[in-house]
C-alpha cells in the first residue's frame, strides 16, 4: 500500500498542491476580488441601497427589458446593477453592468481585474486549455487524491497513535513525516469531504451519462417570462419602493435578500423577483432557488416559488454537496475554519512531496549520486511549491503595478502570474536546489510582507475585508520567511548526505 500512496501522491502532487492552494484562497474569492479593486475600499452599505439602484436604472437604463440588482452583503459592499437593453442577445452576453456606491447611488469605476475569480477558475479549470480537458485532468487528479487519502490511512497506520506528535527539531524525514501526518489526520474529515465533493462536482464531466435529463438546480430561473417582453411600451408605470418588500422577504426567509430582478420595468405586467442571498442550513441548501414574485405596480405577491419543489433526491443531494464544497452557506466564522483546513491540506500535499525527496536522499547518496528522476522531482518541488507561492504574490503585485486604465488589464495580470511561475521554473533549474528554495521563498515572503501597504487606504478606512486580506498576507509572509531563514542557515557538519537531508528537512514549511 505504501507504494500506491507514494506514487499516487507524487504523480499528481504538484497539480494537487496548485488545486489546494488556489482552492483555499477561493474560499475568499469575493474578498480577494474586493482587495484587487481598491477603488471600492471603504464603501459603507446604507439602508435603502436597492431603491437607490432602482433610481439609477430609471435614469440610465430606461426601456430595458430587465433590471437586476445585486445587493451589497458582508463579503462585498458594492451595489451591482445589470440591465438587458431592448433587443439584446440572449444569455449573459446581453447584459450591461455597472457598479454603484450603495450609500450614494453614484457609479463607481473600479479597475478591470479577474480578481479572486481567476484563482477560483484555475482551481478546477486550469487555464488556456479547453474547459472539458482541464476538468478531466483535475478530475483524475482528484481521484488520485482520494486514492492517496485512503491508502495513506493504511500506510501510516500509526497516524492515530501519533496524532498529536510533531517534532520540528528532529532532523531528517521524521519532522516532515510528523508534519505530513498531523495536517493529514487532524483535517482528515475535511480532506475526505472536500475531495469527495470535488469529485462529485466534476462527475458531470467524467461521467456525462449520469446526467441525461435536464439538470435541475443549475438552471434556477425556470419559467422566467422573458418571452412576453414584447408588450408595447405604454406610458411608464412606476415601480413600488423596494425597501419594505425586501424587509418582508427577509422576515419570511430568515436571511438576507441577495438580488432583485425587475422584468419589463415601466410596462404593464411588470414583475419584481426577489431571491435569498444564501440558504441558512444544508438541508435547505437546495432552496437557493427560492423566489418571491411580486407585482411591480403595487407590491402584491403574485407567487412564491419553492426552489426545491420538483427536485429529485439526487439533484438535491448534488446541490448540498456542491454548496458544502464551496462553503456557500458559510458565514464568516465558518469560512475561516474551512480556510484553515484548506491551509492544512495545502501543507499536507507540500510536506508529502518534500518527504518523497528527503526519504530518498540518503539512499541516493550511498548509491553514488542522485538519479535523473530524483533530480527532476526535487527541482519540480521548488518550482511547484515555492514557485507557485511567488507567482501568486506576483499576481497580486501586478494588480497594483499595472496602470489602472490599461487595455486588457485583467488578462495582463493573469499573464504576469504565469510569467512569474515560468521564471521560477527556470530559476529552479539553474540554481542549486537549496539556494533555489531559499531565494524563491525569501522573495515571496518579502513581496507578501510589503503587499498590505498597497491597500493602506482601505486599512485606514477600517474595511474589514481589506484588513482580513492583510492579516492573511502577513501570516503567509511570516511562514515563508521562517522557512527561508531555516534553510539558509549553514548545514550541520556531517556526511554530505546527512547535511543535505537535514537542510531539506529543516526548511520550507510553505
Amino acid at each position: 500500500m505504501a507504494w500506491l500512496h507514494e506514487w499516487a501522491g507524487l504523480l499528481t502532487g504538484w497539480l494537487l498542491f496548485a488545486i489546494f492552494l488556489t482552492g483555499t484562497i477561493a474560499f475568499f474569492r469575493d474578498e480577494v476580488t474586493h482587495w484587487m479593486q481598491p477603488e471600492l475600499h471603504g464603501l459603507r452599505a446604507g439602508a435603502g441601497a436597492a431603491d437607490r439602484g432602482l433610481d439609477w436604472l430609471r435614469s440610465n437604463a430606461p426601456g430595458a427589458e430587465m433590471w437586476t440588482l445585486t445587493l451589497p452583503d458582508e463579503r462585498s459592499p458594492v451595489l451591482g446593477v445589470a440591465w438587458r437593453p431592448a433587443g439584446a442577445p440572449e444569455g449573459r452576453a446581453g447584459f450591461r453592468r455597472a457598479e454603484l456606491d450603495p450609500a450614494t447611488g453614484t457609479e463607481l469605476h473600479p479597475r478591470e481585474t479577474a480578481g479572486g475569480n481567476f484563482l477560483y477558475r484555475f482551481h478546477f479549470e486550469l487555464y488556456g486549455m479547453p474547459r472539458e480537458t482541464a476538468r478531466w485532468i483535475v478530475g483524475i487528479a482528484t481521484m488520485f487524491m482520494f486514492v492517496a487519502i485512503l491508502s495513506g490511512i493504511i500506510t501510516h497506520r500509526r497516524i492515530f497513535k501519533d496524532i498529536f506528535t510533531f517534532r520540528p527539531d528532529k532532523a531528517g524525514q521524521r519532522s516532515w513525516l510528523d508534519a505530513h501526518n498531523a495536517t493529514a489526520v487532524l483535517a482528515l474529515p475535511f480532506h475526505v469531504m472536500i475531495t469527495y465533493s470535488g469529485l462529485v462536482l466534476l462527475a458531470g464531466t467524467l461521467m456525462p451519462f449520469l446526467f441525461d435529463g435536464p439538470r435541475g438546480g443549475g438552471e434556477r430561473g425556470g419559467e422566467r417570462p422573458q418571452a412576453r417582453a414584447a408588450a408595447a411600451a405604454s406610458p411608464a408605470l412606476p415601480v413600488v419602493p423596494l425597501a419594505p418588500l425586501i424587509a418582508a422577504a427577509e422576515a419570511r426567509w430568515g436571511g438576507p435578500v441577495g438580488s432583485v430582478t425587475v422584468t419589463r420595468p415601466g410596462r404593464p405586467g411588470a414583475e419584481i423577483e426577489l431571491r435569498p442571498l444564501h440558504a441558512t442550513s444544508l438541508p435547505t441548501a437546495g432552496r437557493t432557488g427560492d423566489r418571491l414574485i411580486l407585482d411591480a405596480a403595487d407590491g402584491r405577491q403574485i407567487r412564491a416559488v419553492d426552489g426545491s419543489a420538483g427536485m429529485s433526491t439526487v439533484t438535491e443531494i448534488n446541490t448540498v454537496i456542491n454548496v458544502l464544497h464551496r462553503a456557500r452557506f458559510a458565514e464568516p466564522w465558518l469560512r475561516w475554519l474551512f480556510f484553515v483546513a484548506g491551509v492544512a491540506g495545502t501543507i499536507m500535499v507540500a510536506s508529502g512531496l518534500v518527504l518523497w525527496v528527503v526519504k530518498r536522499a540518503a539512499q541516493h547518496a550511498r548509491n553514488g549520486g542522485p538519479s535523473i528522476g530524483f533530480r527532476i522531482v526535487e527541482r519540480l518541488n521548488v518550482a511547484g511549491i515555492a514557485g507557485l507561492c511567488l507567482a501568486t504574490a506576483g499576481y497580486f503585485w501586478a494588480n497594483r503595478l499595472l496602470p489602472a486604465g490599461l487595455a486588457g488589464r485583467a488578462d495582463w495580470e493573469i499573464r504576469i502570474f504565469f510569467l512569474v511561475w515560468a521564471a521560477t521554473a527556470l530559476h529552479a533549474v539553474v540554481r542549486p536546489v537549496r539556494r533555489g528554495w531559499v531565494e524563491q521563498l525569501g522573495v515571496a515572503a518579502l513581496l507578501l510582507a510589503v503587499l498590505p501597504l498597497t491597500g493602506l487606504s482601505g486599512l485606514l478606512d477600517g474595511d474589514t475585508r481589506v484588513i482580513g486580506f492583510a492579516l492573511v498576507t502577513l501570516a503567509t509572509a511570516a511562514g515563508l520567511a521562517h522557512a527561508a531563514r531555516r534553510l539558509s542557515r549553514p548545514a550541520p557538519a556531517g556526511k554530505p548526505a546527512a547535511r543535505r537531508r537535514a537542510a531539506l528537512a529543516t526548511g520550507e514549511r510553505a
Partner: protein
Amino acid sequence: MTTAAMFTWPACVLAWAGFLGLALAMDRHHDQVLGGRPSVLRRRLAMLTGWALLGLATAAAVAGWGWSIGLAALWGVLGLAGGGLVLGLAYAPRRLPALTAVLALTMWLPAVLF
C-alpha cells in the same frame, strides 16, 4: 448570526481541552506535559474527560449552527484545535495546563461581548 459567533470560540476551546485529555492519556504526551507515565486510573480519567469534552464541543457546534452545518463546522473546529495543540505540544508542552485554564476563562467572552 449572533449565535454562531457566540458558539464558535467555546467549541474551539472545548475541542482543544478534549484533545488535550486524549493526549494526556498517551505516555509520550503525558511525560511531555506533566512528567512521568500516567497511572492506569489517570489514563482512563484523561481519556474519559477528553471524549466528554469533545462531545461538548460537538454540542456547542450544533447549538451554534444547527445539525447540518454544525457537523460540517465541527470538522473545522477539530482541525483548528488539534492543529493548535500539536504546535503547543511541540513548542511549549509544560505551559499547556496554564494555557488551557486561560482559554477556558476566555471561552465565555463571546457570550459577554455579543
